[in-house]
């Protein structure tokens, strides 16, 4: 019987083609929004998790409590050599010197036995000049040991052309992908960094992070709010954005901080089997002893915090999309109600030839459910296309472009089931009215 009902319902849908398609369109729009938002949201979450997994959940970021005050995170400012006056720009951006964290990572390793390795990383804004242009750029200087142990924090530090930093005794610089374009330099060229001559030994692969915002620049404001977790998250995002950055080994850059702000952080890895939270507490105690109050935040804490925020955003967006779906369902109900009014006499005939109330109810519910299902199936397709093509757009807005939307089987099957259920539900009331019609009264209808 159900197959016969299905066939009859399909005939009914086909017989009122235009209205059916308009109704289906309403469901389609809702489902498209749900699928696109959830798949993009899941993609962002997955990308964030992957990023943290690359770094490792056993890693602890140590952020000095007074470290970033006055840090200048201005984006690159490039001018032709004749127009570039470092002293003038430096006056504008001069900040209190000595804002380095001052953390002695070697001492820290001795103080906290649970730590396996630790390294420092300092970021400065320095005048940089190539033959073509000059300006201020972000110069990040990891120690050689940091590069070896924590390159994941720098987005993997993937060299596309040339070699990496290895010799602390010579002036070598590795430039980010966009910095290389801005400075118009290639491997083998020489540039001035902080007034010293450096050889470009490598160019990094594109990190893919947005240039529309500067996560390090946001540190200042975030630091003021006092939330160390947010500071650490922003810092991680800023560090992984290598496109607009120059890299010089800390051993060579140590003397370049006299006139510009700088921000140093320390990264440590907890030994296998040791408790990360206990190590965090031990680090904070040790740093107090060093005279450098700092907050130690584990990557796991940051991941939880970011995932929580992303989850909330995803839930809000999905709720908005669900409203669109409900509007589609109301449209469906309206169509079914109109169909019952228009087909009252047909309902009477159905009853006259032996249809039971339940069969009439089933016919209209299946009719409505099928329209929901068709709208759902088309919506899944449209939502998938939308999220695939919309990824770049959303990525640029969120500042995360290296992700792909996630289309899970539960999402697709769940959406289809929900579309059919919602469609059927929307048809229940009109169908119930149809089933309750008295056959004689229905037959008398014009």
């Amino acid at each position, binding site marked *: 019987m159900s197959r*016969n009902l299905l*066939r009859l319902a399909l*005939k009914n849908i086909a*017989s009122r083609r235009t209205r059916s398609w308009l109704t289906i369109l309403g469901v389609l729009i809702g489902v498209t929004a749900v699928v696109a938002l959830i798949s993009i949201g899941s993609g962002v979450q997955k990308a964030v998790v992957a990023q943290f997994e690359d770094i490792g959940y056993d890693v602890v970021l140590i952020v000095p409590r007074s470290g970033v005050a006055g840090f200048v995170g201005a984006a690159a400012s490039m001018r032709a050599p004749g127009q570039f006056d470092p002293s003038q720009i430096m006056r504008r951006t001069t900040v209190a010197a000595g804002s380095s964290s001052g953390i002695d990572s070697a001492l820290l390793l001795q103080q906290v036995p649970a730590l396996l390795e630790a390294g420092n990383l300092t970021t400065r804004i320095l005048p940089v000049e190539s033959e073509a242009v000059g300006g201020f750029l972000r110069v990040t200087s990891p120690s050689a040991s940091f590069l070896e142990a924590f390159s994941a924090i720098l987005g993997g530090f993937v060299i596309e052309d040339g070699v990496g930093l290895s010799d602390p005794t010579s002036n070598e610089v590795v430039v980010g992908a966009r910095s290389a374009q801005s400075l118009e330099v290639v491997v083998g060229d020489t540039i001035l960094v902080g007034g010293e001559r450096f050889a470009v030994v490598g160019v990094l692969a594109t990190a893919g992070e947005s240039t529309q915002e500067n996560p390090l620049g946001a540190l200042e404001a975030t630091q003021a709010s006092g939330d160390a977790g947010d500071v650490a998250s922003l810092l991680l995002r800023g560090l992984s954005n290598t496109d607009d950055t120059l890299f010089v080994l800390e051993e060579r850059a140590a003397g370049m901080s006299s006139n510009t702000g700088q921000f140093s952080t320390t990264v440590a890895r907890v030994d296998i089997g040791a408790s990360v939270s206990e190590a965090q507490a031990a680090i904070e105690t040790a740093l107090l002893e060093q005279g450098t109050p700092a907050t130690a935040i584990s990557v796991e804490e940051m991941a939880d915090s970011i995932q929580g925020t992303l989850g909330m955003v995803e839930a809000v967006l999905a709720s908005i999309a669900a409203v669109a779906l409900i509007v589609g369902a109301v449209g469906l109900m309206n169509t079914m109600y109109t169909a019952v009014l228009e087909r009252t006499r047909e309902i009477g*005939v159905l009853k006259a*030839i032996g249809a039971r*109330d339940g069969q009439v109810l089933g016919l209209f519910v299946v009719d409505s459910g099928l329209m929901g299902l068709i709208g759902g199936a088309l919506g899944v397709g449209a939502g998938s296309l939308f999220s695939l093509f919309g990824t770049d757009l959303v990525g640029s807005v969120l500042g995360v472009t290296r992700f792909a939307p996630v289309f899970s089987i539960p999402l697709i099957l769940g959406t289809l089931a929900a579309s059919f259920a919602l469609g059927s539900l929307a048809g229940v009331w009109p169908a119930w009215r149809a089933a309750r019609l008295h056959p004689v009264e229905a037959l008398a209808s014009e």
Partner: protein
Amino acid sequence: MPQLLDVYKTYRMGAVEVLALRGITVDIPDRHLTVVMGRSGSGKSTMLHLIGCLDTPTKGVVEHRGVNLGELTSRERAAFRAKEAGFVFQKFSLMPNLSARENVELPLLLRNSTRSEARAASESALVRVGLDDRMRHRPSKLSGGEQQRVAIARALINDPSLVLADEPTGNLDTATGASILALLRGLTDQEKTVILVTHDQGISELADLLVELQDGAVSKREATMRRVA
């Protein structure tokens, strides 16, 4: 045989009660053509609806083959209509979105027949009413007479004991109407009990039994042919 014993039927139209049948008692002979005549509002369609289990009497008993139809549940009434009654209406009442064959198949599909069974039976029924070359046509592509033939084929598809026709020629020209009446008349030879409601005096000549209603009461009962005593 269908029997109506002191049957009353009252309709409520808002605050007003309309007495459609006023204690009628009629025995309908099996396998004969009974014509029920009367003016508009005389209660003839109401009588047909009661016999066909589309409605229940307010008072009195409507029986068929010893079953009191008024005591049936909604589900049992639907089953009765599916198995025992085949309806033919004045306005044909075909599903506009289905072909002639699909319209005829419909009662079988509602009874859980397979598609192939329903198709074979509907094609056979359409051949019997002379529409073997119009099976795939939708009602809008058929003439009035053809549509009524489809309706008759649909009424017969479940092999019911009763064929109930409400003004079956009301929307047809005289010649087409005559062919439809001949078709209905012929059903009595197939062991069907045919009850035909009309206000057309000319049709009374075909009747084995003529019942005339006036204001909800039987005003005349006349066995017009040799087969009915």
